[in-house]
């Protein structure tokens, strides 16, 4: 009897809560981990290709794009069945990529060739190859589709690409080794992290100038461990979050005042971040401790860390 009551209660709770599925690429296991974001449990892992890193969900939510770096391709998976339905010609060693707001194009950073490859997803064809600085990594498309920002790790610049002409039309010098870039929801700001300077720069999109620079520091953590990578900003532009690499923490930044509010302890070497679809939770990939941490965004507390497999790298969540 009691079991039944518990079962029914569980079911009711499950219906009320917004469930989501989290997909994590495992760089060393050549696999994809599937996690129940609500319950914080690993559902399964499945092989996906050699050295999977960047991962995105298509705008309609039906497909997953996974950059399998050592296969030199981006795989298209059916998001329901997780079966491979195609591949995209990403160029050599794809790592990170971004999607145009209408979901038709992918912009892929090709670190070794110093270029950004533009792919038409439907045609599965390369539309353009845009030369940028040395070792491009972070790439982001503005929500209004006016700009593609590509940051190169060695040139230490953000290259502003016009999506119409596929030309670099402006550059912004940033702190050494930029690793993460994200546009604010209103498209007015670009947030860029510098791994080597341990800083976060907020760039005004119109003037393309840095309007605020935050040097991240934690009193109890040595400076050389502060290497920020991933950065995300919520849709309401209230909060932004920065993954701080070997500092094992996520910085919580007030997106209005542009000040750090606090640091949350997560697993080791945290690199990439993803919101749940309702933006109630944030997922972090912790590359060295082989797990993801789940952060509750109402309370700004880390709820749980879930072991997923070796070297978790990219993360994305689907309703």
């Amino acid at each position, binding site marked *: 009897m009691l079991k039944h009551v518990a079962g029914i209660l569980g079911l009711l709770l499950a219906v009320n809560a917004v469930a989501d599925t989290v997909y994590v690429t495992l760089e060393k296991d050549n696999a994809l981990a599937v996690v129940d974001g609500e319950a*914080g449990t690993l559902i399964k892992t499945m092989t996906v290709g050699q050295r999977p890193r960047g991962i995105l969900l298509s705008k309609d939510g039906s497909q997953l794009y996974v950059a399998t770096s050592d296969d030199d391709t981006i795989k298209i998976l059916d998001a329901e069945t997780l079966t491979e339905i195609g591949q995209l010609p990403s160029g050599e060693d794809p790592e990170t990529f971004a999607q145009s707001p209408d979901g038709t194009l992918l912009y892929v950073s090709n670190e070794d060739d110093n270029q950004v490859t533009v792919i038409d997803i439907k045609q599965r064809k390369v539309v353009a190859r845009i030369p940028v600085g040395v070792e491009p990594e972070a790439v982001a498309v503005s929500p209004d589709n006016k700009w593609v920002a590509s940051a190169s790790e060695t040139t230490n610049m953000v290259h502003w690409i016009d999506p119409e002409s596929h030309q670099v039309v402006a550059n912004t010098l940033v702190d050494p080794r930029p690793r993460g870039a994200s546009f604010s929801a209103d498209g007015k700001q670009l947030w860029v992290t510098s791994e080597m300077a341990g800083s976060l720069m907020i760039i005004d999109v119109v003037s393309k100038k840095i309007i605020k620079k935050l040097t991240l520091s934690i009193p*109890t*953590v040595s400076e050389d461990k502060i290497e920020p990578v991933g950065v995300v900003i919520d849709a309401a532009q209230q909060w932004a979050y920065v993954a701080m690499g070997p500092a*094992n923490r996520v910085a919580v930044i007030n997106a209005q005042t542009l000040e750090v509010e606090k640091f949350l*302890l*997560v*697993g080791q070497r945290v690199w990439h971040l993803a919101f749940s679809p309702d933006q109630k939770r944030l997922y972090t990939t912790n590359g060295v*401790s082989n797990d993801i*941490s*789940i952060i509750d965004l109402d309370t700004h*507390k*880390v*709820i*749980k*860390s879930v072991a997923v497999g070796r070297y978790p790298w990219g993360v994305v969540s689907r309703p």
Partner: protein
Amino acid sequence: MRIFHYWRALSGIVSREVWRFLYQRERFIAALVRPLVWLFVFAAGFRSTLGIAITPPYETYILYEVYITPGLLGMIQLFNGMQSSLSMVYDREMGSMRILMVAPLPRGFLLMAKLVAGTFVSILQAYAFLGIAWLYGIQPPLDGLLWVFPALVLSGMMLGALGLLLSSFIKQLENFAGVMNFVIFPMFFMSTALYPLWKIKESSEWLYWVAQYNPFSQAVELIRFALYGQLNQYALVYTGAAFVIFMLLAILGYNPSKGMMMRKGRG
């Protein structure tokens, strides 16, 4: 003998303890300062030492100060238990114990009332400490603050009973330093209050063994799990059993015809 008499004795003893505690403001502050120094100074230095492995009841990485908090709650109760044993020795020296002992109630009940009083005081201290820790950013789930109450009652009674047992051995106030050296410090340091068992095992096998069977460890684990809304059954049974054993021995120890008091009288 009516139940009323029992109640009067119990409330008399409890309120005497509480008043004594509240009026001795230094004692209240001292009781809080001790764990706070550990939290602010000791734990701050080790902030990042843990966070390598996740052990239950924790579900994610924690700072050292979060780990040490249940241990410091245990420390509050350990010191409190020993403090009431000290006060028993004092009472005996001052003669006020005679008044207590000549009350026409069973000795076991009187000792139990003394224990309840001491535990009550220790729980007041524990919640005051949790309040300050909360402001410092150590915020266990709210229902955990509720669940920790029964855990604190049992752990407080167990450590209080140990104090009573010890007080039946100690003849003079001066011997209390010995209690500090030989009971409080080993019990606290050789437990899971400061380091989890797996960490202790890494450094020393025998220390791991001692920590595992140290009743103080089990009391701390009971508190730790309760603070996160979970029940550690093993710790519950272990702490409960330790309480019963210490209490029975203490009652025996205070029995004038059989116990230690008589032997001491002779000696």
